[in-house]
């Protein structure tokens, strides 16, 4: 065993867990003073660490996390895909539905018909003209029975 004790740097390496030189490692394994120096530090670390949580606490915390996870994020994949597909369909149809509503101005059918009747009643020629036009295109059938369509 070397008489030289570990330097501060070597002790730090030993505490951190890094590899020591062969001589330093051999010294540490056999020197009571250096081992006691190392163990005193580790004892202080353990004292500062305190007690670990008991099994009941660990189980409770774990189960709460698992329950929260189970309740929110374990839906089958197809449910999410179905919801996404439905959203896409709705979004793609939305413009069509909107334009349908926009392109159909509201009007009162009865009022329009009344207005047309009113125009026609004020202009009787329009009825005559319409008959003439019809007769010019399609001659009237022979009323005495001699004529024939065939």
């Amino acid at each position, binding site marked *: 065993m070397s008489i030289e004790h570990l330097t*501060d740097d070597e*002790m*730090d390496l030993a*505490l*951190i*867990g*890094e590899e020591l030189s062969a001589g330093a490692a051999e010294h540490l394994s056999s020197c009571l003073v250096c*081992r*006691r*120096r190392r*163990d*005193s*530090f*580790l*004892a*202080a*670390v*353990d*004292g*500062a*660490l*305190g*007690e*670990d*949580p008991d099994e009941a*606490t*660990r189980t409770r*915390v*774990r*189960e*709460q*996390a*698992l329950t*929260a*996870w*189970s309740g*929110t*994020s*374990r839906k089958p994949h197809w449910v999410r895909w179905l919801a996404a597909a439905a959203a896409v369909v709705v979004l793609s149809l939305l413009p069509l539905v909107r334009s349908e509503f926009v392109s159909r101005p509201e009007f009162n059918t009865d009022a329009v018909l009344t207005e047309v009747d009113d125009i026609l009643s004020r202009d009787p020629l329009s009825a005559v003209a319409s008959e003439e036009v019809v007769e010019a295109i399609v001659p009237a059938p022979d009323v005495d029975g001699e004529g024939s369509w065939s």
Partner: protein
Amino acid sequence: MASVARREMPLEPEEELELVESAQRGDRDAAGALLERHELAVFRACRRLLPQGEDVEGAVQETLLRALRSLTRFSGQGSFGGWLIAIAVNLCRDRLRRRRLVPFQPLEVGDDDAADPIAVLSSSEPSPERVAMARQAVERLRREVARLPRRQQEVFALRFFVGLDLAGIAEALAVDVGTVKTHLHRAVQRVRAAVEEANP
């Protein structure tokens, strides 16, 4: 090392990966087994990264829930434990930032919550003076850790209170191992000097 020895033995990587894959498919039992294996490390990390009096159980529960909800994003390239601790570290940082609290508030001397440091000392039948010095060493350690810069506090806590190795700390903090070593050396240098001063 005493604190490292308190770390739970990790699962075999293949076994852990199987559990992760089952949990990613929604298997509650697999998820529970995974959490059970690593929750103690999360408890220790949250307790040491949050100030005294902070709701540690709430932080642990939120960490576990965050991990479960983002399980599908865990690629399996690193260790599940390191990934979980990374979530815990980020959550603690968020809480500290939000509340603007100073972490690692030193406890009052004679805190009953602390384990008796004498129980882990190698010497048998300690004298009253030695008991007092050991308690003082614990107190000095807490105070000195509380004074460390934030990143040094984190690496110190993850190394000595959670029991992660250097690679695990690097993974949890998303930095390289060299950076971890640098911070850890500085932290240990300061804290060890303070402890030795209290307990020569």
